[in-house]
Protein backbone atom coordinates (compact mmCIF):
# COMPACT_ATOMS: atom_id res chain seq x y z
CA UNK A 1 0.00 0.00 0.00
CA UNK A 2 1.46 3.40 -1.02
CA UNK A 3 1.98 6.24 1.47
CA UNK A 4 -0.79 8.83 1.26
CA UNK A 5 0.37 12.21 -0.06
CA UNK A 6 -1.71 13.81 2.66
CA UNK A 7 -3.22 12.57 5.87
CA UNK A 8 -5.19 14.80 8.22
CA UNK A 9 -6.03 13.56 11.69
CA UNK A 10 -8.57 15.29 13.94
CA UNK A 11 -7.95 18.81 12.65
CA UNK A 12 -9.67 21.57 14.61
CA UNK A 13 -9.83 25.29 14.02
CA UNK A 14 -11.77 27.96 15.88
CA UNK A 15 -12.11 31.62 14.98
CA UNK A 16 -12.87 34.32 17.44
CA UNK A 17 -13.37 37.82 16.16
CA UNK A 18 -13.53 40.56 18.72
CA UNK A 19 -12.94 40.33 22.45
CA UNK A 20 -16.41 39.19 23.50
CA UNK A 21 -17.43 37.41 20.31
CA UNK A 22 -18.51 33.77 20.51
CA UNK A 23 -16.01 31.37 18.96
CA UNK A 24 -16.85 29.99 15.52
CA UNK A 25 -15.93 26.32 15.16
CA UNK A 26 -14.71 26.27 11.57
CA UNK A 27 -13.29 22.72 11.72
CA UNK A 28 -14.59 20.26 14.28
CA UNK A 29 -12.00 17.51 14.17
CA UNK A 30 -11.80 16.39 10.55
CA UNK A 31 -9.72 13.44 9.33
CA UNK A 32 -9.11 12.15 5.82
CA UNK A 33 -6.41 10.84 3.47
CA UNK A 34 -5.42 11.53 -0.13
CA UNK A 35 -3.73 8.78 -2.10
CA UNK A 36 -1.07 9.37 -4.80
CA UNK A 37 -2.29 9.89 -8.37
CA UNK A 38 -5.92 10.20 -7.30
CA UNK A 39 -8.26 13.11 -8.09
CA UNK A 40 -10.12 14.03 -4.92
CA UNK A 41 -12.99 16.49 -5.00
CA UNK A 42 -13.54 18.64 -1.94
CA UNK A 43 -17.20 19.54 -1.64
CA UNK A 44 -19.30 21.49 0.79
CA UNK A 45 -21.58 24.49 0.97
CA UNK A 46 -20.17 28.00 1.41
CA UNK A 47 -18.77 28.34 4.92
CA UNK A 48 -18.47 24.57 5.40
CA UNK A 49 -14.74 24.93 6.13
CA UNK A 50 -13.14 23.99 2.79
CA UNK A 51 -10.92 27.06 2.40
CA UNK A 52 -10.07 26.98 6.13
CA UNK A 53 -8.91 23.38 5.73
CA UNK A 54 -6.78 24.29 2.71
CA UNK A 55 -5.24 27.24 4.57
CA UNK A 56 -4.48 25.03 7.60
CA UNK A 57 -2.92 22.44 5.28
CA UNK A 58 -0.51 25.06 3.96
CA UNK A 59 0.05 26.67 7.38
CA UNK A 60 -1.39 29.92 6.08
CA UNK A 61 -3.75 29.69 8.99
CA UNK A 62 -2.66 27.83 12.12
CA UNK A 63 -4.86 24.95 13.28
CA UNK A 64 -5.81 24.73 16.97
CA UNK A 65 -5.03 21.02 17.14
CA UNK A 66 -4.71 17.91 15.01
CA UNK A 67 -2.00 16.34 12.87
CA UNK A 68 -1.12 16.87 9.23
CA UNK A 69 1.18 14.39 7.49
CA UNK A 70 2.63 14.98 4.04
CA UNK A 71 4.13 12.00 2.22
CA UNK A 72 4.07 10.12 5.52
CA UNK A 73 5.99 12.76 7.47
CA UNK A 74 4.65 15.08 10.12
CA UNK A 75 4.36 18.81 9.29
CA UNK A 76 4.87 21.03 6.29
CA UNK A 77 8.62 21.04 5.77
CA UNK A 78 10.28 22.89 2.87
CA UNK A 79 10.91 19.45 1.33
CA UNK A 80 7.17 18.76 1.41
CA UNK A 81 6.36 22.25 0.11
CA UNK A 82 8.62 21.71 -2.90
CA UNK A 83 6.38 18.78 -3.91
CA UNK A 84 3.13 20.73 -3.55
CA UNK A 85 1.43 23.11 -5.99
CA UNK A 86 -1.34 25.46 -4.91
CA UNK A 87 -3.87 27.73 -6.56
CA UNK A 88 -6.00 29.85 -4.22
CA UNK A 89 -9.59 30.89 -4.83
CA UNK A 90 -10.00 33.99 -7.07
CA UNK A 91 -6.29 34.51 -7.71
CA UNK A 92 -4.89 37.93 -8.62
CA UNK A 93 -1.26 38.00 -9.49
CA UNK A 94 1.51 40.54 -10.01
CA UNK A 95 0.06 43.08 -12.46
CA UNK A 96 3.37 44.23 -13.89
CA UNK A 97 4.96 40.85 -14.58
CA UNK A 98 4.51 39.08 -17.89
CA UNK A 99 3.05 35.57 -17.86
CA UNK A 100 6.48 34.16 -18.65
CA UNK A 101 8.25 36.14 -15.88
CA UNK A 102 5.54 35.13 -13.44
CA UNK A 103 5.98 31.41 -14.12
CA UNK A 104 9.75 31.73 -14.09
CA UNK A 105 9.54 33.43 -10.66
CA UNK A 106 7.43 30.63 -9.16
CA UNK A 107 9.67 28.03 -10.78
CA UNK A 108 12.80 29.59 -9.30
CA UNK A 109 11.31 29.96 -5.85
CA UNK A 110 10.25 26.33 -5.85
CA UNK A 111 13.90 25.43 -6.30
CA UNK A 112 13.27 22.11 -8.05
CA UNK A 113 14.20 22.68 -11.69
CA UNK A 114 17.48 23.81 -13.25
CA UNK A 115 17.42 27.03 -15.37
CA UNK A 116 17.28 25.33 -18.76
CA UNK A 117 14.68 22.81 -17.66
CA UNK A 118 12.63 25.61 -16.12
CA UNK A 119 12.68 27.61 -19.35
CA UNK A 120 11.41 24.58 -21.25
CA UNK A 121 8.77 23.92 -18.59
CA UNK A 122 7.53 27.56 -18.80
CA UNK A 123 7.12 27.25 -22.57
CA UNK A 124 5.40 23.86 -22.30
CA UNK A 125 2.98 25.03 -19.63
CA UNK A 126 2.11 28.26 -21.44
CA UNK A 127 1.25 26.09 -24.45
CA UNK A 128 -0.66 23.59 -22.31
CA UNK A 129 -2.88 26.22 -20.69
CA UNK A 130 -3.43 27.96 -24.04
CA UNK A 131 -1.43 31.10 -23.25
CA UNK A 132 1.56 30.69 -25.56
CA UNK A 133 0.42 33.80 -27.47
CA UNK A 134 0.16 35.91 -24.29
CA UNK A 135 3.32 34.80 -22.46
CA UNK A 136 5.07 38.14 -22.99
CA UNK A 137 2.09 40.30 -22.01
CA UNK A 138 1.80 41.79 -18.51
CA UNK A 139 -0.70 40.01 -16.28
CA UNK A 140 -2.80 43.17 -15.82
CA UNK A 141 -3.93 42.77 -19.44
CA UNK A 142 -5.13 39.18 -18.84
CA UNK A 143 -8.82 38.30 -18.61
CA UNK A 144 -10.20 36.44 -15.58
CA UNK A 145 -10.05 33.13 -17.43
CA UNK A 146 -6.46 33.76 -18.52
CA UNK A 147 -5.46 34.57 -14.93
CA UNK A 148 -7.05 31.35 -13.75
CA UNK A 149 -5.14 29.39 -16.38
CA UNK A 150 -1.78 31.05 -15.63
CA UNK A 151 -2.57 30.37 -11.95
CA UNK A 152 -2.95 26.67 -12.68
CA UNK A 153 0.32 26.80 -14.62
CA UNK A 154 2.12 28.29 -11.58
CA UNK A 155 0.76 25.47 -9.44
CA UNK A 156 2.24 22.95 -11.88
CA UNK A 157 5.49 24.72 -12.79
CA UNK A 158 7.76 22.67 -10.51
CA UNK A 159 6.28 19.25 -11.41
CA UNK A 160 4.57 18.78 -8.02
CA UNK A 161 3.48 15.41 -6.73
CA UNK A 162 0.40 16.89 -5.12
CA UNK A 163 -1.66 19.92 -6.15
CA UNK A 164 -4.30 21.75 -4.19
CA UNK A 165 -6.74 23.85 -6.20
CA UNK A 166 -9.28 26.03 -4.41
CA UNK A 167 -12.28 26.39 -6.74
CA UNK A 168 -10.23 26.40 -9.95
CA UNK A 169 -13.27 26.69 -12.20
CA UNK A 170 -14.95 29.64 -10.49
CA UNK A 171 -15.82 32.43 -12.89
CA UNK A 172 -14.83 30.53 -16.01
CA UNK A 173 -16.98 30.14 -19.11
CA UNK A 174 -17.89 26.61 -20.29
CA UNK A 175 -14.81 26.46 -22.55
CA UNK A 176 -12.57 27.52 -19.69
CA UNK A 177 -14.15 24.96 -17.36
CA UNK A 178 -13.62 22.26 -19.93
CA UNK A 179 -9.96 23.23 -20.32
CA UNK A 180 -9.39 23.21 -16.55
CA UNK A 181 -11.06 19.80 -16.36
CA UNK A 182 -8.74 18.47 -19.05
CA UNK A 183 -5.66 19.90 -17.32
CA UNK A 184 -6.68 18.25 -14.04
CA UNK A 185 -7.23 14.94 -15.83
CA UNK A 186 -3.87 15.14 -17.64
CA UNK A 187 -2.05 16.11 -14.45
CA UNK A 188 -3.50 13.15 -12.56
CA UNK A 189 -2.65 10.82 -15.44
CA UNK A 190 1.02 11.77 -14.90
CA UNK A 191 0.81 10.50 -11.31
CA UNK A 192 0.12 13.76 -9.49
CA UNK A 193 -2.51 13.68 -6.76
CA UNK A 194 -5.09 16.43 -7.23
CA UNK A 195 -7.20 17.83 -4.42
CA UNK A 196 -9.66 20.45 -5.56
CA UNK A 197 -12.58 22.21 -3.98
CA UNK A 198 -15.53 23.01 -6.18
CA UNK A 199 -19.18 23.95 -6.25
CA UNK A 200 -19.55 22.53 -9.75
CA UNK A 201 -20.87 19.10 -8.90
CA UNK A 202 -21.37 17.73 -12.43
CA UNK A 203 -17.68 18.41 -13.07
CA UNK A 204 -16.70 16.81 -9.77
CA UNK A 205 -18.83 13.77 -10.63
CA UNK A 206 -17.06 13.36 -13.96
CA UNK A 207 -13.55 14.03 -12.69
CA UNK A 208 -13.14 12.75 -9.17
CA UNK A 209 -12.05 9.29 -8.11
CA UNK A 210 -12.65 10.19 -4.47
CA UNK A 211 -14.67 12.76 -2.60
CA UNK A 212 -14.37 14.58 0.69
CA UNK A 213 -17.65 16.22 1.67
CA UNK A 214 -18.00 18.74 4.48
CA UNK A 215 -21.02 20.06 6.28
CA UNK A 216 -20.62 22.87 8.82
CA UNK A 217 -17.04 22.09 9.69
CA UNK A 218 -17.51 18.31 9.85
CA UNK A 219 -16.60 15.68 7.30
CA UNK A 220 -19.70 13.74 6.29
CA UNK A 221 -18.20 11.62 3.53
CA UNK A 222 -14.73 10.49 2.48
CA UNK A 223 -14.57 7.74 -0.07
CA UNK A 224 -14.96 6.74 -3.66
CA UNK A 225 -17.24 8.77 -5.93
CA UNK A 226 -18.57 5.60 -7.53
CA UNK A 227 -19.36 4.09 -4.15
CA UNK A 228 -21.37 7.14 -3.18
CA UNK A 229 -23.21 7.21 -6.50
CA UNK A 230 -23.72 3.44 -6.28
CA UNK A 231 -25.36 3.75 -2.88
CA UNK A 232 -27.94 6.01 -4.42
CA UNK A 233 -28.73 3.53 -7.22
CA UNK A 234 -32.35 2.38 -7.36
CA UNK A 235 -32.22 -0.12 -10.27
CA UNK A 236 -31.76 -0.12 -14.05
CA UNK A 237 -33.72 1.15 -17.05
CA UNK A 238 -33.74 -0.72 -20.38
CA UNK A 239 -34.89 1.20 -23.42
CA UNK A 240 -36.16 -0.86 -26.38
CA UNK A 241 -37.40 0.09 -29.79
CA UNK A 242 -40.36 -1.44 -31.58
CA UNK A 243 -41.68 -0.10 -34.89
CA UNK A 244 -39.85 3.17 -34.30
CA UNK A 245 -41.38 3.66 -30.83
CA UNK A 246 -39.26 3.65 -27.68
CA UNK A 247 -40.31 1.69 -24.59
CA UNK A 248 -38.74 1.76 -21.11
CA UNK A 249 -38.52 -1.22 -18.75
CA UNK A 250 -37.35 -0.70 -15.15
CA UNK A 251 -35.85 -3.47 -12.99
CA UNK A 252 -34.51 -3.37 -9.44
CA UNK A 253 -31.49 -5.69 -9.28
CA UNK A 254 -28.61 -6.82 -11.53
CA UNK A 255 -30.04 -10.36 -11.60
CA UNK A 256 -33.43 -9.08 -12.72
CA UNK A 257 -31.66 -7.00 -15.35
CA UNK A 258 -30.07 -10.11 -16.93
CA UNK A 259 -33.40 -11.96 -16.93
CA UNK A 260 -35.21 -9.01 -18.45
CA UNK A 261 -32.59 -8.59 -21.20
CA UNK A 262 -32.89 -12.31 -22.05
CA UNK A 263 -36.67 -11.99 -22.15
CA UNK A 264 -36.58 -8.92 -24.39
CA UNK A 265 -34.12 -10.56 -26.79
CA UNK A 266 -36.32 -13.63 -26.92
CA UNK A 267 -39.13 -11.30 -28.01
CA UNK A 268 -36.74 -10.01 -30.71
CA UNK A 269 -36.99 -6.47 -29.43
CA UNK A 270 -34.18 -4.09 -30.25
CA UNK A 271 -32.36 -2.97 -27.07
CA UNK A 272 -31.30 0.66 -27.46
CA UNK A 273 -29.90 1.50 -24.03
CA UNK A 274 -29.30 0.04 -20.57
CA UNK A 275 -28.45 2.48 -17.78
CA UNK A 276 -28.42 2.50 -14.00
CA UNK A 277 -31.14 4.53 -12.33
CA UNK A 278 -29.40 6.70 -9.81
CA UNK A 279 -29.27 10.20 -8.48
CA UNK A 280 -26.66 12.61 -9.76
CA UNK A 281 -23.96 13.80 -7.38
CA UNK A 282 -25.74 17.15 -7.28
CA UNK A 283 -28.97 15.51 -6.10
CA UNK A 284 -27.12 13.41 -3.53
CA UNK A 285 -25.24 16.46 -2.28
CA UNK A 286 -28.43 18.45 -1.83
CA UNK A 287 -30.05 15.57 0.07
CA UNK A 288 -26.97 15.18 2.26
CA UNK A 289 -26.94 18.86 3.01
CA UNK A 290 -30.57 19.61 3.64
CA UNK A 291 -32.53 16.43 4.20
CA UNK A 292 -31.11 14.55 7.13
CA UNK A 293 -34.13 12.22 7.23
CA UNK A 294 -33.75 11.11 3.63
CA UNK A 295 -32.69 7.46 3.20
CA UNK A 296 -29.76 8.55 1.06
CA UNK A 297 -28.57 10.94 3.71
CA UNK A 298 -28.78 8.11 6.22
CA UNK A 299 -26.73 5.81 3.95
CA UNK A 300 -24.17 8.47 3.17
CA UNK A 301 -23.65 9.83 6.61
CA UNK A 302 -23.51 6.48 8.34
CA UNK A 303 -22.90 3.59 5.97
CA UNK A 304 -20.55 5.38 3.60
CA UNK A 305 -18.42 7.06 6.20
CA UNK A 306 -14.99 5.49 6.51
Amino acid at each position, binding site marked *: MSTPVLEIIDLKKT*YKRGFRAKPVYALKGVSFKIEPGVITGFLGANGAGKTTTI*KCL*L*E*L*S*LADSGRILYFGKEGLS*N*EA*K*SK*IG*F*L*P*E*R*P*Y*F*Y*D*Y*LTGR*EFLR*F*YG*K*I*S*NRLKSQELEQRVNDLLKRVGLAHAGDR*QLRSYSKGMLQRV*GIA*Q*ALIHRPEFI*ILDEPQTGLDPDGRFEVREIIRETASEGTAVFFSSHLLPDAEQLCDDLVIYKQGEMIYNGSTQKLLGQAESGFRITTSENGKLHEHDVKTAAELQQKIDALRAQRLEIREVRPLRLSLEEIFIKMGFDAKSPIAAIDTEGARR
Partner: protein
Amino acid sequence: MNYLKSICVIGVNTYREVIRDRILYGIVVFALLLIGLSVVLGGLSFAEQAKISADFGFAGIQIGASILAIFVGSTLVAKEIDKQTILTLLARPITRTQFILGKFVGLILVILTVMAGLAAVLAGLLLFLQLPITGLFAVALYGVILEALVLVSCTLMFGVISRPIMTVIFASSIFLLGHWVSSLEGLMKMKSIASEPTFQIGVKVAKIIPNLERFNWRSAPIYNIDVPFQDLAYATVYAIGWMIVFLALTSFIFRRRDFV
Protein backbone atom coordinates in the same frame (compact mmCIF):
# COMPACT_ATOMS: atom_id res chain seq x y z
CA MET B 1 22.87 29.03 0.01
CA ASN B 2 19.28 28.20 -0.94
CA TYR B 3 18.17 30.46 1.90
CA LEU B 4 19.86 33.48 0.29
CA LYS B 5 18.85 32.43 -3.21
CA SER B 6 15.16 32.50 -2.29
CA ILE B 7 15.55 35.96 -0.73
CA CYS B 8 17.23 37.17 -3.93
CA VAL B 9 14.50 35.67 -6.14
CA ILE B 10 11.79 37.45 -4.12
CA GLY B 11 13.90 40.61 -4.07
CA VAL B 12 14.35 40.65 -7.85
CA ASN B 13 10.63 40.00 -8.34
CA THR B 14 9.73 42.84 -5.98
CA TYR B 15 12.17 45.12 -7.78
CA ARG B 16 10.67 44.24 -11.14
CA GLU B 17 7.12 44.80 -9.91
CA VAL B 18 7.85 48.16 -8.23
CA ILE B 19 10.08 49.54 -10.97
CA ARG B 20 7.25 49.06 -13.48
CA ASP B 21 4.61 50.62 -11.22
CA ARG B 22 3.39 54.07 -12.27
CA ILE B 23 3.50 55.41 -8.72
CA LEU B 24 7.30 55.22 -8.90
CA TYR B 25 7.42 57.60 -11.84
CA GLY B 26 5.30 60.11 -9.92
CA ILE B 27 7.83 60.06 -7.08
CA VAL B 28 10.80 60.35 -9.47
CA VAL B 29 9.19 63.32 -11.25
CA PHE B 30 8.57 64.96 -7.86
CA ALA B 31 12.24 64.50 -6.87
CA LEU B 32 13.40 65.82 -10.25
CA LEU B 33 11.20 68.88 -9.80
CA LEU B 34 12.81 69.48 -6.40
CA ILE B 35 16.27 69.29 -7.99
CA GLY B 36 15.05 71.59 -10.77
CA LEU B 37 13.69 73.98 -8.17
CA SER B 38 17.16 74.08 -6.63
CA VAL B 39 18.46 75.78 -9.80
CA VAL B 40 15.70 78.39 -9.63
CA LEU B 41 16.26 79.04 -5.92
CA GLY B 42 20.03 79.07 -6.37
CA GLY B 43 19.55 81.73 -9.05
CA LEU B 44 18.11 84.07 -6.41
CA SER B 45 21.53 84.26 -4.76
CA PHE B 46 24.43 85.88 -6.62
CA ALA B 47 27.26 84.51 -4.50
CA GLU B 48 26.06 81.11 -3.33
CA GLN B 49 24.07 79.76 -6.30
CA ALA B 50 25.97 76.46 -6.55
CA LYS B 51 25.79 75.82 -2.79
CA ILE B 52 22.06 76.51 -2.57
CA SER B 53 21.43 74.31 -5.63
CA ALA B 54 23.51 71.48 -4.12
CA ASP B 55 21.67 71.80 -0.80
CA PHE B 56 18.26 71.56 -2.47
CA GLY B 57 19.47 68.84 -4.81
CA PHE B 58 20.56 66.57 -1.95
CA ALA B 59 17.31 67.35 -0.13
CA GLY B 60 15.43 66.29 -3.30
CA ILE B 61 17.25 62.95 -3.37
CA GLN B 62 16.68 62.39 0.34
CA ILE B 63 12.97 63.26 0.17
CA GLY B 64 12.54 61.11 -2.96
CA ALA B 65 14.19 58.12 -1.24
CA SER B 66 12.15 58.64 1.94
CA ILE B 67 8.84 58.95 0.07
CA LEU B 68 9.69 55.76 -1.82
CA ALA B 69 10.57 53.96 1.41
CA ILE B 70 7.38 55.04 3.19
CA PHE B 71 4.76 55.06 0.43
CA VAL B 72 5.87 52.01 -1.55
CA GLY B 73 7.00 50.19 1.61
CA SER B 74 3.56 50.66 3.20
CA THR B 75 1.82 48.69 0.43
CA LEU B 76 4.55 46.13 -0.16
CA VAL B 77 3.15 43.41 2.14
CA ALA B 78 -0.45 44.69 2.24
CA LYS B 79 -0.76 44.34 -1.55
CA GLU B 80 0.42 40.73 -1.40
CA ILE B 81 -2.19 39.98 1.26
CA ASP B 82 -5.02 41.83 -0.53
CA LYS B 83 -4.30 40.13 -3.83
CA GLN B 84 -3.71 36.78 -2.13
CA THR B 85 -0.37 36.35 -3.92
CA ILE B 86 1.05 35.78 -0.44
CA LEU B 87 -0.88 32.51 -0.28
CA THR B 88 0.80 31.07 -3.36
CA LEU B 89 4.20 32.38 -2.25
CA LEU B 90 4.11 31.01 1.28
CA ALA B 91 2.95 27.65 -0.08
CA ARG B 92 6.39 27.42 -1.76
CA PRO B 93 9.53 26.26 0.04
CA ILE B 94 10.26 29.63 1.64
CA THR B 95 9.85 30.87 5.20
CA ARG B 96 7.94 33.98 6.18
CA THR B 97 11.24 35.57 7.25
CA GLN B 98 12.68 34.97 3.77
CA PHE B 99 9.60 36.61 2.29
CA ILE B 100 10.06 39.74 4.46
CA LEU B 101 13.80 39.90 3.70
CA GLY B 102 13.11 39.49 -0.02
CA LYS B 103 10.62 42.37 0.04
CA PHE B 104 13.16 44.48 1.92
CA VAL B 105 15.96 43.72 -0.55
CA GLY B 106 13.66 44.45 -3.52
CA LEU B 107 12.63 47.88 -2.28
CA ILE B 108 16.19 48.80 -1.32
CA LEU B 109 17.27 47.88 -4.87
CA VAL B 110 14.54 50.16 -6.25
CA ILE B 111 15.66 53.02 -4.00
CA LEU B 112 19.29 52.53 -5.04
CA THR B 113 18.30 52.60 -8.72
CA VAL B 114 16.25 55.77 -8.33
CA MET B 115 18.98 57.40 -6.23
CA ALA B 116 21.60 56.55 -8.84
CA GLY B 117 19.50 58.29 -11.51
CA LEU B 118 18.79 61.36 -9.36
CA ALA B 119 22.44 61.56 -8.23
CA ALA B 120 23.58 61.52 -11.87
CA VAL B 121 21.22 64.43 -12.63
CA LEU B 122 22.46 66.36 -9.57
CA ALA B 123 26.11 65.68 -10.42
CA GLY B 124 25.54 67.01 -13.94
CA LEU B 125 23.84 70.07 -12.50
CA LEU B 126 26.66 70.74 -10.02
CA LEU B 127 29.30 70.35 -12.72
CA PHE B 128 27.32 72.81 -14.83
CA LEU B 129 27.34 75.22 -11.85
CA GLN B 130 31.10 74.59 -11.51
CA LEU B 131 30.94 73.03 -8.04
CA PRO B 132 33.60 70.30 -7.85
CA ILE B 133 32.39 66.71 -7.33
CA THR B 134 34.50 65.10 -4.60
CA GLY B 135 34.31 61.93 -2.52
CA LEU B 136 32.11 63.85 -0.10
CA PHE B 137 29.35 63.74 -2.73
CA ALA B 138 29.35 59.94 -2.33
CA VAL B 139 29.44 60.29 1.47
CA ALA B 140 26.29 62.44 1.41
CA LEU B 141 24.55 59.85 -0.76
CA TYR B 142 25.75 57.05 1.54
CA GLY B 143 23.97 58.81 4.42
CA VAL B 144 20.72 58.83 2.43
CA ILE B 145 21.16 55.09 1.76
CA LEU B 146 21.66 54.35 5.48
CA GLU B 147 18.54 56.35 6.30
CA ALA B 148 16.60 54.43 3.62
CA LEU B 149 17.67 51.10 5.19
CA VAL B 150 16.21 52.18 8.54
CA LEU B 151 13.05 53.69 7.03
CA VAL B 152 12.23 50.71 4.79
CA SER B 153 12.67 48.21 7.63
CA CYS B 154 10.60 50.40 9.96
CA THR B 155 7.82 50.81 7.32
CA LEU B 156 7.77 47.05 6.72
CA MET B 157 7.28 46.49 10.44
CA PHE B 158 4.29 48.83 10.56
CA GLY B 159 3.08 47.31 7.27
CA VAL B 160 2.56 43.87 8.81
CA ILE B 161 0.47 45.19 11.70
CA SER B 162 -1.64 47.93 10.12
CA ARG B 163 -3.40 49.09 6.97
CA PRO B 164 -1.30 51.08 4.44
CA ILE B 165 -2.73 54.48 5.44
CA MET B 166 -1.86 53.90 9.10
CA THR B 167 1.55 52.56 8.08
CA VAL B 168 2.24 55.79 6.18
CA ILE B 169 1.22 57.84 9.25
CA PHE B 170 3.36 55.77 11.66
CA ALA B 171 6.41 55.64 9.37
CA SER B 172 6.16 59.37 8.56
CA SER B 173 6.04 60.09 12.29
CA ILE B 174 9.22 58.08 12.80
CA PHE B 175 10.80 59.96 9.89
CA LEU B 176 9.92 63.36 11.40
CA LEU B 177 10.76 62.40 14.99
CA GLY B 178 13.98 60.77 13.78
CA HIS B 179 15.09 64.07 12.31
CA TRP B 180 13.94 66.16 15.27
CA VAL B 181 15.06 63.89 18.05
CA SER B 182 18.49 65.55 18.50
CA SER B 183 16.95 69.02 18.52
CA LEU B 184 14.29 67.90 20.99
CA GLU B 185 16.94 66.35 23.22
CA GLY B 186 18.91 69.58 23.11
CA LEU B 187 15.83 71.62 23.88
CA MET B 188 14.87 69.45 26.82
CA LYS B 189 18.33 69.71 28.32
CA MET B 190 17.50 73.36 28.90
CA LYS B 191 15.90 72.90 32.33
CA SER B 192 13.80 75.99 31.93
CA ILE B 193 11.79 74.26 29.16
CA ALA B 194 11.21 70.79 30.67
CA SER B 195 10.71 69.69 34.24
CA GLU B 196 12.91 66.82 35.55
CA PRO B 197 10.34 64.00 35.04
CA THR B 198 9.48 65.27 31.54
CA PHE B 199 13.19 65.47 30.77
CA GLN B 200 13.74 61.88 31.94
CA ILE B 201 10.78 60.63 29.86
CA GLY B 202 12.04 62.61 26.88
CA VAL B 203 15.51 61.07 27.16
CA LYS B 204 13.99 57.55 27.26
CA VAL B 205 11.69 58.22 24.29
CA ALA B 206 14.64 59.60 22.34
CA LYS B 207 16.42 56.26 22.84
CA ILE B 208 13.62 54.21 21.21
CA ILE B 209 13.50 56.36 18.10
CA PRO B 210 16.26 56.09 15.50
CA ASN B 211 18.16 59.35 15.22
CA LEU B 212 18.11 59.90 11.47
CA GLU B 213 20.20 63.05 11.72
CA ARG B 214 23.22 60.81 12.33
CA PHE B 215 23.15 60.06 8.59
CA ASN B 216 22.92 63.69 7.51
CA TRP B 217 26.18 64.55 5.74
CA ARG B 218 24.49 66.57 3.01
CA SER B 219 26.32 69.78 3.86
CA ALA B 220 29.73 68.05 3.75
CA PRO B 221 30.21 68.27 -0.06
CA ILE B 222 28.75 71.78 -0.18
CA TYR B 223 31.05 73.31 2.44
CA ASN B 224 33.85 70.81 1.90
CA ILE B 225 33.74 69.49 5.49
CA ASP B 226 35.55 66.21 6.09
CA VAL B 227 33.52 63.38 7.64
CA PRO B 228 35.74 61.28 9.95
CA PHE B 229 35.85 57.57 9.20
CA GLN B 230 34.74 56.83 12.78
CA ASP B 231 31.53 58.79 12.15
CA LEU B 232 30.86 56.80 9.00
CA ALA B 233 31.57 53.48 10.74
CA TYR B 234 29.46 54.37 13.77
CA ALA B 235 26.53 55.53 11.60
CA THR B 236 26.77 52.32 9.55
CA VAL B 237 26.63 50.14 12.66
CA TYR B 238 23.81 52.31 14.07
CA ALA B 239 21.75 51.98 10.85
CA ILE B 240 22.34 48.23 10.58
CA GLY B 241 21.44 47.82 14.26
CA TRP B 242 18.08 49.56 13.82
CA MET B 243 17.47 47.70 10.57
CA ILE B 244 18.04 44.33 12.30
CA VAL B 245 15.75 45.30 15.19
CA PHE B 246 12.94 46.38 12.84
CA LEU B 247 13.31 43.36 10.53
CA ALA B 248 13.44 40.94 13.47
CA LEU B 249 10.25 42.46 14.91
CA THR B 250 8.60 42.35 11.47
CA SER B 251 9.50 38.71 11.05
CA PHE B 252 8.39 37.85 14.61
CA ILE B 253 4.96 39.45 14.05
CA PHE B 254 4.56 38.10 10.51
CA ARG B 255 5.37 34.51 11.52
CA ARG B 256 2.34 34.51 13.83
CA ARG B 257 -0.07 36.01 11.35
CA ASP B 258 -3.13 34.00 10.31
CA PHE B 259 -4.24 34.58 6.71
CA VAL B 260 -7.97 34.12 7.22
